[in-house]
């Protein structure tokens, strides 16, 4: 069906100009983001402001050793260079922004506007990535992807309210993916290496990249293959050298690595990201409770998860301690099926899906995962979502759930309507878009089947089948899962404060984590199954 409809829709009216349309989408979202400038911002705002100060006021050799503020630089060098680049303009606008001491917790309008607008402008990178990925798709798919990525509610919440530069980084990832999809493997690998030097958390997909590039790019006979491998290796090493050489020169390498990998932070963040470890912790609690009832002597763990930061002592009462190495191995194991598939049939059309799956694995089993990391797979999955009805259904669920899992980031009353409206708007647009996309396919299918005069019975049955199966309908399990989100939210917002008052404040958050954890787990299994079946 897909193959049949695609060429039909590809003869658009002459006036169509995708680039203007893309700019239009971007401009609309930029207007909304501009309006959101005075909204709540997290401490990440001050973190990034302080980084502007560090990179502007200090020589490179002290960037990673400075301790003026607790918000030390902990991103890789390219991001530091990026901050250095921004600080030039910040200095022109208001020198106090980049002052190391005077700038601390600086909160004038200039710094607010400067930083907020810098995020909005850095989203241009995302725009370019999306443009590259969609320039050969048909009009409807293009538009759906733009709606899903450029108008992503998650990016608005994380980047433009909470404050980070994810749109920019995801843009680099999308550019890299588009290069791979086009078959320009070397370029794709190069850009991915650059991305790793911006934010090392993206390294979860490195095994997929490695296997794919090895097989798809280098596996071309012995001599040619070896030549290509060495070219690829040189490029990657050159990128890393460019990033880290200055720090090696200043003898700062150890310090840089120490800052970038703070393993002392514990398995879970204060608010548990909705992943596998939520279930692990809950299982531990349940077991401890049951065994305690049965008369075993269970010692209460020294550190608790609900208390926030976790030290070195084991927070588990019954189940074994989890170390960074465990999580690392688990991530690798869960990645294996995908790696095998990539090894056997390195197909460019599947790379986006594999990378998204890799980030899902990282999110599921990783060490000290932030809820924000769900962006890493939700955004690439948007590219996959428009490919078929099943993908669309899956995406509908996972994007709503992961957007909901970001709600605790904005905990103040002022932003409450904003996050709710963002989620509702996103769901409605998805529903309208997907149902139009797939209903339209069916209409055309019917039209085509009408042409075949001879086997009318068969064609009729097929069209009826398509109509029954079709359109964008979500099963009742999905629906009831999504609707129960309402219950979780009502409990957390209204019933819990009424019943318990200020007591047990972690329960609503735990409920959200568990609820969303189920959805992410489902998505993980669904993606795994899809990859195995393909």
């Amino acid at each position, binding site marked *: 069906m897909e193959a049949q409809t695609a060429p039909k829709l590809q003869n658009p009216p002459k006036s169509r100009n995708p680039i203007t349309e893309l700019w239009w989408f971007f401009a609309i979202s930029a*207007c909304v983001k*501009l309006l959101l400038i005075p909204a709540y911002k997290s401490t990440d705002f001050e973190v990034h402001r302080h980084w502007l100060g560090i990179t502007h006021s200090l020589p490179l050799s002290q960037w990673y050793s400075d301790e003026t503020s607790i918000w030390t630089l902990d991103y890789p060098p390219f991001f530091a260079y990026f901050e250095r680049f921004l600080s030039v303009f910040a200095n022109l606008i208001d020198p106090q922004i980049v002052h190391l001491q005077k700038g601390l917790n600086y909160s004038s309008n200039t710094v607010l506007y400067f930083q907020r607008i810098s995020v909005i402008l850095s989203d241009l990178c995302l725009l370019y990535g999306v443009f590259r990925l969609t320039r050969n798709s048909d009009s409807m798919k293009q538009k759906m992807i733009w709606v899903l990525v450029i108008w992503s509610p998650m990016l608005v919440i994380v980047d433009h309210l909470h404050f980070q530069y994810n749109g920019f980084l995801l843009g680099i990832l999308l550019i890299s993916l588009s290069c791979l999809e086009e078959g320009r493997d070397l370029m794709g690998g190069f850009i991915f290496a650059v991305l790793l030097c911006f934010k090392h958390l993206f390294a979860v997909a490195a095994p997929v990249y490695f296997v794919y590039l090895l097989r798809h790019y280098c596996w071309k006979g012995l001599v040619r293959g070896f030549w290509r491998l060495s070219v690829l290796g040189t490029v990657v090493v050159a990128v890393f050298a460019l990033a880290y050489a200055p720090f090696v020169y200043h003898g700062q390498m150890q310090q840089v690595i120490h800052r970038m990998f703070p393993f002392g932070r514990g398995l879970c963040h204060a608010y548990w990201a909705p992943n596998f470890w939520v279930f692990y912790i809950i299982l531990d609690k349940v077991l401890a409770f049951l065994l305690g009832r049965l008369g075993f002597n269970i010692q209460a763990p020294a550190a608790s998860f609900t208390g926030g930061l976790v030290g070195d002592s084991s927070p588990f009462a019954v189940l074994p301690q989890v170390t960074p190495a465990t999580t690392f191995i688990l991530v690798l194991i869960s990645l294996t099926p995908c790696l095998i598939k990539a090894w056997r049939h390195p197909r460019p059309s599947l790379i986006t899906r594999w990378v998204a799956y890799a980030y899902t694995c990282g999110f599921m089993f990783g060490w000290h995962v932030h809820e924000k990391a769900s962006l890493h797979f939700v955004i690439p999955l948007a590219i996959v979502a428009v490919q078929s009805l099943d993908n669309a259904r899956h995406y509908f669920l996972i994007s709503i759930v992961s957007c909901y899992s970001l709600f605790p980031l904005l905990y103040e009353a002022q932003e409450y*309507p904003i996050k709710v409206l963002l989620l509702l708007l996103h769901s409605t647009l998805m529903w309208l878009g997907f149902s139009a996309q797939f*209903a*339209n396919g069916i209409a055309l299918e019917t*039209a085509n089947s009408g042409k075949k005069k001879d086997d009318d019975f068969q064609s009729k049955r097929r069209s009826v089948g398509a109509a029954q199966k079709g359109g964008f309908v979500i099963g009742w399990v999905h629906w009831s899962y999504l609707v129960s989100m309402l219950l979780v939210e009502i409990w957390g917002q209204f019933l819990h404060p009424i019943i318990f008052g200020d007591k047990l404040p972690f329960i609503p958050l735990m409920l959200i984590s568990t609820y969303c954890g189920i959805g992410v787990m489902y998505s993980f299994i669904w993606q795994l199954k899809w990859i195995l079946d393909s």
Partner: protein
Amino acid sequence: MKEAEKMEKSSKKKGNFRKGKEEKLIVESDGGWWWLIHRGITASFLSIALFSLLVRVAVSLHPYSGAGNPPKYGDFEAQRHWMEITLNLPIKDWYRNSTVNDLRYWGLDYPPLTAYQSYVHGLFLRFFSPESVALFASRGHESYLGKLLMRWTVLSSDALVFFPAVLYFVLVYYAGQNPSRRRGDIAWHIAIILLNPCLILIDHGHFQYNCISLGLTVGAIASVLSDKDLVACVLYSLALNHKQMSAYFAPAFFSHLLGKCLRRRYPVLEVLKLGIVVLGTFIVVWWPYVHSTEDFLGVLSRLAPFERGIFEDYVANFWCTTSVLVKWKRLFPTQSLKLISLGATVSTFLPSMIQQIWAPSKPGFLYGLLNSAFSFYLFSFQVHEKSILLPLLPASLLAMEEPTLYTWMTLYALFSMFPLLHRDKLVLPYLALSALFFLLNHVPNGRQATRDTSALRSSVTTVSVLCSVVLHVVYLSMHPPARYPFLFEALIMLVCFTHFVFLTLYANAKQWMLLKDSNLVDKEKKLL
């Protein structure tokens, strides 16, 4: 039997085929936006409404009028004060000066429906933040929660009154139309009504409840369009009772309904019916005050602030603009100014009224609303710069027929409020919403704008747009000369006034031209 079945099948198939083809044709002719309205008007209305609400919430993050500006603050404090008064005083004392109700400090001067609305919203505020509406003690109350709750009362009013009214209007307006019409256009029209930048900035930025009275008016207009005249009378009376400014539309409603009644069998009876409904609604709303003449006149005198002078600040209407040359306030006493302005207003809306009594028609009614509101804005007594919202409303409803008129009007309405919004520190939302409006007007592959590209017109457009852009920049970046501290305001006013005059002349001409068109149609019918 089998033959018949086969026949049926093949005809069905052909039907399907045709349907599919139609679908495809629509897909192609509709450019990019057919998917938004694919599930029907209501579904796409839902998504656009959600977006508009999001924009409103985002605007409401910004400062309100008179924030942190004692002793009188601004409209925000006025509305909060009304909640405080209605919540804590007995209903008869709401409009009465007393030791606890100092009418000089934002005394209640809107009709009773506003007072009731303040009471209900006051209950909401008291539930969450009692100190924000405490009698006396809460004067000038400003807090995070207080601002938030107040903002939410406007948001909920908008969502509960204005949005459903617009949906009703759109459903009625496009009910009789050809279904093969470009479906994206309807979505565009919904967006353009809901995302009117002026209304959003005044209600959710500056702080007022125009959405309620305008929403009720839209409801009344939609009822008129669907021939439910009695409902229209009730809704319009409610609008009048929420804000007396809704009287700007009175001539149009009156003339259209009168014209309609005259064409019925028992005109007097019909008029009587409408009159009774209006009177009934008024009595219900005014019930606490109709028991004694003293109470009634007391409230009435609060609603007509004639002591304030013919204009305030800088508003782009006739009196204010010409006062640069003719000092009206010095030449005439207030009493005669009242009469002069009344005469000017009546004589300017009379032509449009006559047209509607003579030949009432649905498009004519919309033009009539525009024209009568415009004549009030330009010539009546005591006009605020915010009153431009009233003529803007029918213009937005007419946007599909008159896209150019609507665009120009919105831009200059925005511009005329720029000094006010600048004072309120709303320049950023002003710019963002203007950009949003521009983008909505230039949806790629959206509407196929039938653009007239005559050299004269495009050069006039360029000059006028350039003028306003330069004025914006000058206003923001330069200080006026000390001798004329309000020079820039006066210039802005002059530019806007000129545009408004041209627009109203055009709209009046259009309304009368409808007559010619309908005559032509009638003649054609006769010929056929």
